[in-house]
């Protein structure tokens, strides 16, 4: 990292004035000719960023870019674009010839990552390089309002509970009537023994003894259970 940057720094001593363009390709996501004219691209390194307006041919032209490593961003009202890293440097045209020419390299880059963390290459070449600036996602600004629909009303758990209990209240006697006489007898026996009945009374009791205060105080269910099992210790402490 350090070495590459110092190398870039040394490039800056040559008078470099690179020229390249960012182009918005036509994709299934967007027809670039429909983009608003406020769409623009910036190259940011140090000091005020270089700014380029969107041209008729869906490009952003950058002229006279001095050597350095730039963050290229396309700002658009309707679409989010991927950020790019563009390095502008000077290279020898032919090895050992001593003739200098501008070299432009472009990669994908990622916010919140180290600058050296480059992604896919987006092209490299000399002056006049065309780099694709790809839109990633359309921006959607609005929140959907949840309208009233009978289905969502029925999906409500309270309503479902009510419907089920209604079904039980009205359906059970009918079921009992249609049962085998033997099964019916068995069932009545069971009820007498109190398997079903006692269970129901127990839940009723639980609901009656529900400790609203502790629940409101944010004690979780497990904590609640713990306090119940360790009931002798708890109140003792309080006293």
């Amino acid at each position, binding site marked *: *990292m350090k070495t590459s940057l110092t190398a870039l720094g040394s490039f800056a001593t040559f008078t470099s004035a690179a020229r390249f363009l960012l182009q918005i390709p036509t994709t299934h996501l967007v027809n670039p000719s429909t983009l608003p*004219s406020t769409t623009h691209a910036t190259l*940011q390194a140090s000091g005020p960023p270089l700014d380029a307006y969107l041209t*008729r041919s869906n490009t952003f032209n950058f002229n006279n870019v001095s050597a350095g490593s730039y963050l290229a961003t396309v700002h658009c009202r309707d679409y989010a674009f991927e950020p790019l890293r563009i390095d502008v440097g000077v290279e020898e045209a032919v090895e050992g010839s001593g003739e200098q020419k501008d070299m432009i390299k472009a990669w994908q880059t990622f*916010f919140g990552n*180290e*600058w050296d963390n480059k992604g896919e290459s987006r092209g490299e070449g000399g002056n006049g390089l065309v780099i694709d600036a790809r839109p990633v996602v359309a921006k*959607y*600004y609005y929140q*959907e309002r949840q309208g009233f629909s009978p289905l969502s009303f029925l999906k409500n758990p309270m309503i479902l509970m009510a419907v089920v209990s209604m079904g039980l209240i009205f359906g059970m006697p009918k079921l009992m009537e249609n049962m085998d006489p033997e099964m019916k007898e068995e069932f009545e026996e069971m009820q007498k023994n109190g398997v079903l009945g006692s269970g129901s009374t127990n839940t009723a009791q639980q609901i009656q003894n529900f400790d609203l205060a502790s629940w409101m105080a944010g004690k979780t269910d497990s904590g609640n259970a713990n306090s119940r099992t360790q009931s002798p210790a708890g109140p003792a402490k309080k006293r």
Partner: protein
Amino acid sequence: MRLYAALALAACAAPAAAIFEDDAYHIDFHYALLGLPKHDATFFQKPYAGSKASLLYSISENQTLGAINPKDGALVWRQRLPPAPSGTGQLRCGHEQDTIVSAAGNSITAWSASDGRLVWDTVTGGTVEDLEILEQEDGMANSATRDPIVLVADGHASVRRLDGKTGRAKWTFEDASGDTPFQVSTSPTAIYYIALHTPLLGGSKLRVTFLNPVTGKKLDQYTLNSDPEITSRDRILFAGANTAAPLLAWTDKANKVLKVNIIGTKAVSSFATPGDEAVESIVLHAPNHVDSLAHFLVEYQTAVGHSADVYHVDLKKNTVAKAYSLPQLKRKGTFTTSTSDANVYFTRITEDEVVVFSSVSHGVLGRWNVKSSPVLAGAYPVHGQSEVVVKSGTASAVRSAVLYSNGQWALLRNDELAWTRPEFLSGTVSAVWAGLPEEEALAQALADESHRNLVPAYIHRVQRHMHDLKYFPAWAQSIPQRLLGSVIGKPRETTVEDIQHDTFGFHKLVIVATEAGRLAALDVGSRGKVMWNMDLNEFAHHTSFQHPILKAHSGYVEVKDANFKGSVFINSTTGGLLSSDNIKLEVPLVSKGQGLVSFTLVDGTLKGYLESKPSSEPVWSFTPATGERIVSYTARPVKDPVASIGKVLGDRRVLYKYLNPNLVLVVAVLDSSRSASIYLLDSASGQLLHTMSHNDVDISRSIPATISENWFTYALTVDSASGASTRGHQLVVSDLYESPLPDDRGPLGANSNSSTVQPSGSTGGVVKPYVLSQSYQVPVEITHMAVTQTRQGITSRELLVTVPSTNSIIGIPRSFIDPRRPIGRDPTAQEQSEGLVKYAPVISFDPKWHLTHKYEVLGIKHIITSESGIESTSLVFAYGLDIFGTRVAPSFSFDILGKGFNKISMLLTVVGLFVGVLFVAPLVRRKQINAIWKM
């Protein structure tokens, strides 16, 4: 990698209050402004050859160019050019071209006329003095593209012809004579370069150089003896017009004599200006079309009225002769020129009348009496552009885009006002909130009562209630209509007219002051309707308001300016001037033994003075570390209600907030080492509470900061020059607590009666806060910050940031920038119940956070917020070039029914339940009876 980014985005996509689609464009408003249009750079033009309708193009005094739809005044497109001296922008358009060419500063740019996209741009070495389009070449119309001719001043003058397709220079003519370049003008045969030749003594001589349009070679040159008249540049009235006979006109200092030269001849015609009244200014109007008649109109403005003379140019004899005069009117007005084929028409526009004349004779072709409008009340036309339709000798229709003296840009279509654009608002420099008249009156009445004895106060109150009773019948009558309206839910815009139904307190006035010294009031609840608009300079002769500073009091605003001694008091509801002895100055409540400390920046040092003794020695002063320069400082808002003094954690323990009301945040930068320091001060004692420092900061970019409640935040740009490992922009958020431990009051704990709200009350010194910070990377640069305000401070706050690169204002929910977000691990159940999410280094701005949604707000400099009548909602107003206002509900609108509440379905449900009860009731009754019988 992309997956990672997507995950980060998903993490941020937790619910946050966004704008509903049906609320957008209803609760918010936006004035997409250009600024005051420049007279010579505003025109009607077809966006491309063969287009049916024309657009109105203009470049404004502040270098914003754009196209306006003349039908409704809506903005079609606009572009803001890089800053250049005010009013130096140029805009030209060739006949039947699909591009328009602008010049500002050192750049010349061609834009697609229909959608505002860039066609080409070139940068010159110096500033562009003038720009013209070469319409004809050797008497032939250039078929494809017209080439622009530019005059550039970079040490010496040069004239260039640019290729209309690419912007490259075709030829350059260098003028090494050292004359001051003035203008270029074109004719079918030559290009005229006009310069001011100024000898050491006396006035300037006009020197005209002829250039060959094809080669750029100098053909001829002559000098006009204009030195008795031309003492300064502004004496030259007119140069150019791409007519067969381009003109050069100037006048003397007293506007007594008018001299006209047909460029290309040496003869100078001299005319006397009307002598009845002192002529204040002279404007020359000439058609700008190649084929039109060589007629022109000279407009004379006097203190009370205006008049005009029409002149004809004889091309064969090369003479100028006066054709007819238009009589003086004792009111202000202006003239516009329009052409149709070869005919030239002049339109006279006054406050109440539009009259069309032909250039040939003084007969009136058409006359319309303009209907008066409250928007233009008391204002007169300053300049304008017209399009005239003439059929068989009478003008059948005329439309004029006119700039009025009150800063409204209006379009008059025959006799009616089609639209107005409040362009004067583009230079807003200061804005304050003010209450509505009704509220203010009630507050006044209540204040009166509280100052009286019990008995008179009671009588006063009863009287007031009796008085209010007279509104009762009207109110009762309106009830059925309102109920019906609200149930059927017609999309009626109740907001505009009936301000008295402002139950929710959304209607608040914002008083704005512009750099030109205008003051206006906008109603934020009524989509920014301009309630009144006045000129401050009327009240203060000999001074001009440059940067007025406003301060709101109940019922009036106080205006101060650096150029003006003392202050002006303006009634905030009517815009009328109040004399200072009519108003009761509010004295801030200070208990005995305490004094108010005010502070200002003096020579790079922040100094605090006792308010009672402003001239005395400062109580405290704060100088940042050596070499550092204070960039800005922000104080906690005076009105910043806090609902809870602590933050309740998931385990029901409490972190006590550090709520010092005197906090001041100072941003200082060190230019040499590219570092920024943030200092937190106590403004009562001047004590330093906290310091933060950042290296590798791009100090040429703005470092916005804000402070609210018990937290402060700032944003900065990372400088790449020193090889920082990251790039982009950062947002740093810090929370202030009394102690790092929950249920602990830190240094205050030992005191039985202490509070950070009264920091210097009990303990003497100021307690230092415990500061918790986190920083995030944000994808774009932030230039300004503000925080929402609500009535009680119960609603969670939202950080509002201005993002100029996307022309938007974004509201970042406070929960996303909570410095207590757990780093490197998932939040525990308790943290989850507090609403904390895992720390992610990037905050990507969710489109749903954009308050401005599809609006593109340009050049926003400042955001102000205010409470509304209900707790959930905060009012937001942003100004700069554009004006934007909206209301936000950071914790959703929990105390008001939204548009999504379907009243009809609610009523239907109630009816349905009632019917159900009717059916079930007999069933239940029967069952009960059966049960009794079974027993």
